[in-house]
């Protein structure tokens, strides 16, 4: 229990720093594409986390991002929307026997298909919301849509990369 909390706090700090110090400074395709890898922290939260807790953690994570980006409410709302969808999605794609206690949302543990469905839907929802809110209007709807899509794909590739890099350690632990 304590180990899980500690691991999640460390993951939160590391991913947030990686996001604001490295990824936000990237200039991919003239900043057309911006990966938001910090959502990996939200994706990897324990599966048995109660709904209210995941919503609150989502709000706090988004708020932290907003402080760094001076964008009050933008990341906060995107993370809350994503976490609300996560509650329903987890029920929808649960294995037949339900989730075992202490099961972690990783590709090596849950299978690649499950993880891909889970992460791609949530990442896409988060990015779409974020990019549409950032625009404040539906002026450039399709341009923004494409931008969100490409950014979500980039984020997803980074998420999978992170999964494969940490999976060796995971399997050893069993």
């Amino acid at each position, binding site marked *: 229990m304590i180990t899980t909390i500690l691991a999640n706090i460390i993951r939160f700090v590391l991913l947030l720093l990686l996001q604001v110090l490295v990824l936000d400074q990237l200039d991919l395709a003239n900043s057309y594409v911006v990966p938001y890898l910090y959502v990996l922290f939200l994706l990897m939260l324990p599966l048995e986390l109660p709904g209210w807790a995941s919503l609150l953690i989502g709000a706090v994570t988004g708020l932290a991002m907003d402080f760094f980006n001076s964008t*009050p409410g933008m990341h906060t709302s995107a993370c809350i929307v994503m976490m*609300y969808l996560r509650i329903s999605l987890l029920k929808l794609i649960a294995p037949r026997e339900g989730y075992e206690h202490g099961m972690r949302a990783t590709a090596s543990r849950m299978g690649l298909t499950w993880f891909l469905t889970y992460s791609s839907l949530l990442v896409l929802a988060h990015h779409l919301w974020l990019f549409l809110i950032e625009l404040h209007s539906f002026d450039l709807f399709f341009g923004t849509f494409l931008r969100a899509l490409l950014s979500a794909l980039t984020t997803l590739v980074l998420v999978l990369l992170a999964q494969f890099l940490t999976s060796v350690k995971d399997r050893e632990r069993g």
Partner: protein
Amino acid sequence: MRDLFRFLFRIRDTLLFLVLIGFSLTLLYSGNAHHRARAINSSNAVVGGIYSLRKQITDYTGLKEVNRRLAEENADFRNRMSSSYASVENRFVRINDTIHRQQYRYVPAKVVNSTWHKPSNTLTLDKGSKDGLHDDMGVIGPNGIVGVLNDVSPHFASVISVLSPEIKTSVQLRNTGHYGLLYWDTNDPRTSSVIDIPKHARVQAGDTVETRGGDRIYPAGIPVGTVLTVVDVPGINYHKITIQLTEDMTRSGYVYVVDDLQRLERDSLQLINSMP
């Protein structure tokens, strides 16, 4: 009654979701756009500290460029020094100048974080209220205007960049004096638009656009950009002018914050006048 509570308990996640999303959307849309980032911005001590730590590390990679720009600026100042002018007459009289008085003071600051690719952009500076900065001060770079301070903490300040549709700066054409507003709707960090310049004003590509002054933010005559294109749409009484910004917003290392020394006097006068 018990059923109601049971129902509320069953949809507790949705209720919490609605409360939280309401809270975040209030943050997003509360207040006027200029002061939107009142509490949540990067002038915060922790955030500013992390950004300036990163800046300390990444500064080394940009030293060559910074040196070049400082040298250019030095050369420019040297050109303006009295020693660079040959004296026309040999008799000098020392005058205690009571006609000219310093109106603006410049506080140099380092940009520790900046964005330029978003629909609305901000910068974070490493100077704050301890250095005499306060809200609504202008920020200029070596080549032109950069933005307006919107919040300060003791050691940091956050700036709304001119690359934001929230701020409109009063600008004028250097040649003719016709004035309009600088409004960033081009979504391109190198260009911006000037609106509200009447059609009878003669403008052509290459004309210089500068600040108008009098808005208590920028001194008059600070360069803003040069005219790229002028489009006249029939039925509208104003030019549609696109300008090239002289300040490269994608790489401002050092900037100057403009302190209007007569601001207090002017503000209190306007306050007295506006009272019934």
